[in-house]
């Protein structure tokens, strides 16, 4: 049931034998409803078992298969071959990340940044489990829900012009996650996170190019989160100067 035959031009790099990355081409007979990942899997199973890449869920939720597809950071499992007009599709590892092998990039930097923004509930006082859940209205949930949807695929880092220039920048996904917790009515950690979020490597590095939000496959809008944080940080800067600043970050939720 071949729908059409395409050429995949895949960036290959095997550090044990290659001195530098190179492109390799494969001819793949595609079916009508194939995504790019299906074509890459076809290569692995039928043409070249040495191709390395990450994938698992095939439903755009595990975040493994972010890669550059015709120059754009995308999830290979959610990018349909039928939507790519050219007969030849170029596939490269995510931009702005070091290549480990083929389409596999190093994630250490991102993982370290994720941890640095303290992405967990910080409370002044814990509520005993026996007292049940914290109440949170749908409106309170709606304030941060969008920012919980990040799958850590790192497409936003591959698109970010600031991260490309300065790898110290904490970057879109990690900052959006900090915002997610800051906006959660159960959390008191905004002040603690501010040291990182509003540092030289944090929100002020963002030039609001909006590239992250444009490529985000889950519509998280990290650029919007960062702009909201800029406003918040500015307000708290003035509050501090005017002696109005409160002890916790739990206000205004």
């Amino acid at each position, binding site marked *: 049931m071949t729908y059409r035959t395409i050429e995949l031009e895949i960036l290959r790099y095997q550090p044990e034998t290659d001195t530098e990355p190179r492109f390799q081409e494969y001819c793949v007979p595609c079916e009508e409803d194939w995504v790019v990942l299906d074509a890459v899997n076809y290569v692995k199973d039928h043409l070249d078992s040495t191709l390395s890449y990450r994938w698992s869920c095939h439903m755009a939720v*595990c975040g493994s298969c972010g890669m550059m597809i015709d120059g754009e950071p995308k999830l290979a499992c959610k990018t349909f071959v039928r939507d790519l007009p050219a007969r030849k599709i170029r596939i490269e590892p995510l931009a702005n990340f070091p290549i480990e092998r083929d389409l596999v990039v190093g994630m250490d930097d991102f993982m370290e940044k994720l941890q640095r923004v303290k992405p967990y509930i910080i409370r002044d006082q814990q509520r005993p489990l026996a007292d049940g859940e914290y109440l949170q209205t749908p409106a309170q949930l709606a304030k941060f829900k969008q920012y919980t949807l990040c799958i850590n695929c790192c497409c936003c880092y591959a698109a970010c012009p600031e991260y490309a220039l300065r790898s110290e920048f904490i970057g879109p996904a990690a900052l959006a996650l900090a915002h997610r917790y800051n906006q959660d009515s159960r959390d008191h950690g905004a002040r603690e996170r501010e040291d990182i979020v509003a540092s030289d490597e944090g929100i002020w590095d963002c030039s609001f190019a909006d590239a992250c939000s444009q490529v985000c496959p889950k519509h998280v809008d990290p650029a919007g989160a960062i702009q909201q944080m800029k406003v918040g940080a500015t307000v708290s800067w003035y509050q501090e100067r005017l002696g109005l600043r409160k002890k916790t970050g739990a206000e205004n939720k």
Partner: protein
Amino acid sequence: MDVIETDIAIIGAGGAGLRAAIAVAESDPQLKVALISKVYPMRSHTVAAEGGAAGVIKQNDSLGFHFHDTVSGGDWLCDQDAVELFVNQAPLELTQLEHWGCPWSREPDGHVAVRSFGGMKIERTWFAADKSGFHILHTLFQTSLQYPSISRFDEYYSTDLVVEDGRCQGLVAMEMRTGLLRMFRAKAVIIATGGAGWMFPFTTNGAIKTADGMAMAYRAGVPLKDMEFVQYHPTGLPGTGILLTEGCRGEGGILVNKDGYRYLQDYELGPPDPWPRKKAMELGPRDRLSQAFWHEQQKGRTVSTRWGEVVHLDLRHLGEAKINERLPMIRDLATSYVGADPVHELVPVRPVVHYMMGGIHTDIDAATPVPGLYAAGECACVSINGANRLGSNSLTELLVFGGRAGRHAAQYAREARPSVDGSLLLKRAETARKRVTDLFLREDQGKRIALLRKALNDAMEDGAGIYRSEESLKKSCDELAELRRCYGRVHLEDKSNVFNTHLIYTLEVGSMLEAAHAIAHSALQRKESRGSHQRLDFANRDDERYLKHSLAYYNADGDPRIDYLDVTITKSPPGKRVYGGDV
């Protein structure tokens, strides 16, 4: 060989592994935890669970109802002491996740909302829209980042347990980025590697679900329990097998055949009320619904599509607002992958392999028969799921039993005798290393690994699917025996060290072959029909002979030995499973 010293090693960083790691860290911050996973934690397949997690919280519900729904849903093969503990702990674990920040969907007054699920008498499934597993996983992962005693070893593929002196004292794992094999020396090991759906051709499972932990324990002499019970989820997208949550039906979705007829009323699930009646019709249990599809297909009442036979899931009457609020991902998935927007169109669905009820034999404390070795989550079999798991019990299970595994492993590690001479452990680890390095030495003579996996898929689908028989299962067993022989000759087409996914794939196929072998033989020996195990040649449940757990013991050179273990029955004597209007 490099040795990494730790107190507790956890294999797998999905829901159960993360919950176990946090439990260790909270019970004793002095204990070092090595959290070892072949993928980054947030890639683990817990991420793909959609519908929610069951736990009694509302005034109209009771622990007794949850207990009875679970036991009857499991066709009385559940251990009732374990189920009782499970339903008691469930609300606490779910509340704990709420305290850790899980964005559960809410009622207008701010309380956690619950939805209806299949086989459940009362709505008690906590949910975060239709991404419950995703949110549970990310909440656990993010929460785990605050504990300094947890060291992560991301993208380490575990190959073998190190068992010496009759107890588990560590494991061997490969750092995928270098290909280096290392020994983790630990006082206790917890396996939390998830299921094995990838041995079937059509599954909701991600490609990482390859029975690694089950096979590791099995080869180390731990029996695999109740492996014949494989759950088909009734509503997967044809072609890809992508899951469409039972929450679709919990919210009021209906299933119709090619005539637009709600066919479930013909299978003791009626009456077809226009509203969702609990434990009836579309809210029946998964085994019954998947079996009903099979019968519809036999009668020629399914719909032929280019992806094969399907029925239709109709959500249109829910309206766009409700679908967007409660089932946004379902809308996106159906629209993207089969071109059917559920707001306006019927969505094609069919049964798809989803979950292993069986797994590593553990007791109620998540302990296996090998001292120092624990298991939790889908890879384990306690058993609370019996012959058929109810939807939304598994997310809760990985919290309850992941937590227990962590606490009990911590206690064991504190009390464990000092380990034996390290050189004996290293000798074990060297044997494990040789199993991997030997693959590099083989000449090009065997079958290609991708073809071997295809043959494994076919053997399972043809012989051990929704309906089975002596003939089909014997054929599967024979084919699997032949594939195991082939596997002994398989060679590597990629002999590099750095991120060699072909090597990992080869090892994964080896794991799946062993677990599949246990499934086929356990199924062949169980000459009755119970829950998800349906035999065309033994159509009835046979409590006299088979109200027992099966235990499959590994045999390197031949068929597994199948033994049986009594089911623990405390307060619910085996009865008839009743669904539909008669409940």
